[in-house]
């Protein structure tokens, strides 16, 4: 078996082409790890071993005869279980969709297939990405401490990448659902600019806040994934916007200016996390970047607009099942959906009016700085059974406490990454969040990569040997 403790997409691709091992060998290794470890981690809902080995064989044979589809060719990946996959059950971790088998792939799944990836299966998540574990599926456990939450809603995606059960995963992010689990599980989670990646064939939570993005072990791997996720042959999306991983190399990171919203960092973030973010900002300053304070405007307005839009749009999508199968939802999912039905149209429209003003504030912010820095989550991973976040000893509503940190970049559609920046005293990972201007995804990822290089922290896997099923 191959040692995958320090494996990345880039390293695997280089090893394929140097003949050190093949896509078939790598798929076997990862499937063995899934078989041994996922009984306890619960990161997969469906494992597609036979299809994966068939595609791995094909990638091996293609590379051997010089057919090279690029950096993702032969790479073992997995998809959050709300990406439609033709012929493979797509549950959204719900009872409502428990037996749903799409007849076509989501656009982004098709794009990755064309890039030659080897999908290992479909990943656990919070029910319909709405913040709640459905009892039929159970939680994906945090591999750094099995009694802690892995966050969500892309919980299985973060766990599988962190634990070495795939090399890269797809997630979706409506209020922080890629970045927050990435922060809690110690991996890179990237939410691209709104609309850069197609959402066709992705089960929606809130159309105007949903983003599709990758979870990986490095920022460079996230860039490789993102380039392959944009399906058109010329590398652009339907709006003519594109992304090239090579663009990261042209970014002069020491010339960047980073803004820190102190009002949010000081009040909405636990001290243990804040300390590591301050250390990370010091390291970025030593790279030559300028660090300065910024204001994102009224944070209560941002949260209010995000939640009003989210609740109303989610209920609009779910209303047919809410009428006919309300008892099939997890209790809190149902309650959120029922509450969303009661959001007056007046409030929804006014939230959209407020959104326009908030976008204006962000345009001003990004005239003065290139990036905004915050944590990927305000605390380290909470206990599996805890009902509230604990921020500096105060109990805070989980949904609001998390979305306050990450949601501003969903409301404005700006690109944002969470990159690991160390572990707190409880041994759990913390993520540094960097957000940038619309369509400057390459700047965000270049800064994250420069931070990784500055830290030079070796990649490692959580110690799970005691849980191996042999």
């Amino acid at each position: 078996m191959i040692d995958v403790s320090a494996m990345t997409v880039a390293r695997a691709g280089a090893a394929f082409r140097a003949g050190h091992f093949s896509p078939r060998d790598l798929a076997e290794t990862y499937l063995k790890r899934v078989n041994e470890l996922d009984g306890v981690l619960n990161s997969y809902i469906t494992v597609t071993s036979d299809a994966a080995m068939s595609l791995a064989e094909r990638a091996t044979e293609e590379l051997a005869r010089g057919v090279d589809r690029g950096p993702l060719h032969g790479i073992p990946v997995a998809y959050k279980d709300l990406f439609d996959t033709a012929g493979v059950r797509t549950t959204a971790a719900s009872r409502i969709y428990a037996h749903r088998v799409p007849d076509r792939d989501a656009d982004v799944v098709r794009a990755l297939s064309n890039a030659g990836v080897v999908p290992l299966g479909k990943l656990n998540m919070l029910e319909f990405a709405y913040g709640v574990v459905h009892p039929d599926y159970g939680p994906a456990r945090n591999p750094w401490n099995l009694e802690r939450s892995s966050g969500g809603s892309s919980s299985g995606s973060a766990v599988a990448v962190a634990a070495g059960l795939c090399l890269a995963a797809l997630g979706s992010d409506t209020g922080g659902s890629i970045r927050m689990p990435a922060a809690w599980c110690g991996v890179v989670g990237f939410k691209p600019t709104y609309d850069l990646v197609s959402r066709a064939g992705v089960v929606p939570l809130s159309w105007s806040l949903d983003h599709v993005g990758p979870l990986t072990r490095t920022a460079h791997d996230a860039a490789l994934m993102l380039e392959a996720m944009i399906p058109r042959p010329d590398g652009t999306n339907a709006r003519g916007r594109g992304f090239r991983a090579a663009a990261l190399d042209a970014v002069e990171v020491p010339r960047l200016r980073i803004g820190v919203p102190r009002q949010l960092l000081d009040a909405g973030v636990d001290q243990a996390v804040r300390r590591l973010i301050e250390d990370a900002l010091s390291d970025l300053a030593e790279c030559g970047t300028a660090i300065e304070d910024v204001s994102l405007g009224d944070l209560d307005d941002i949260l209010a607009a995000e939640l009003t839009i989210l609740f109303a749009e989610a209920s609009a999508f779910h209303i047919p099942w809410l009428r006919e199968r309300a008892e099939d939802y997890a209790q809190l999912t149902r309650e959120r959906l029922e509450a969303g039905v009661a959001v007056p149209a007046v409030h929804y429209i006014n939230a959209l009016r407020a959104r326009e003003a908030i976008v204006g504030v962000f345009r001003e912010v990004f005239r003065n700085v290139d990036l905004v820095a915050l944590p990927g989550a305000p605390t380290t991973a909470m206990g599996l059974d805890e009902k509230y976040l604990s921020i500096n000893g105060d109990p805070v509503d989980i949904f609001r406490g998390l979305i306050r940190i990450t949601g501003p970049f969903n409301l404005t559609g700006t690109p944002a990454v969470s990159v690991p920046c160390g572990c707190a005293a409880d041994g759990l990972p913390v993520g540094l969040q960097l957000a940038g201007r619309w369509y400057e995804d390459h700047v965000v990822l270049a800064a994250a990569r420069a931070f990784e290089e500055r830290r030079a922290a070796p990649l490692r896997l959580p110690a799970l040997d005691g849980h191996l099923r042999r």
Partner: protein
Amino acid sequence: MTRQVLVAVLAASGIRVTDADIVRVEVLVAALRVDGERLTARVAPDAQPLLQIGQLGPAEPTS
């Protein structure tokens, strides 16, 4: 929002709820109502709704 109104809104949407459901949902609705009222009071009179997020557009590049 009074309980009567909440029940009426849900019933008009075809959603059957018990008294216990209503008690739990009321808390969430109350929080959302506070959000909505606050936003409504603060939106500038001439503000337009952002109906298509594609209108976001890029800020002028400076890097």
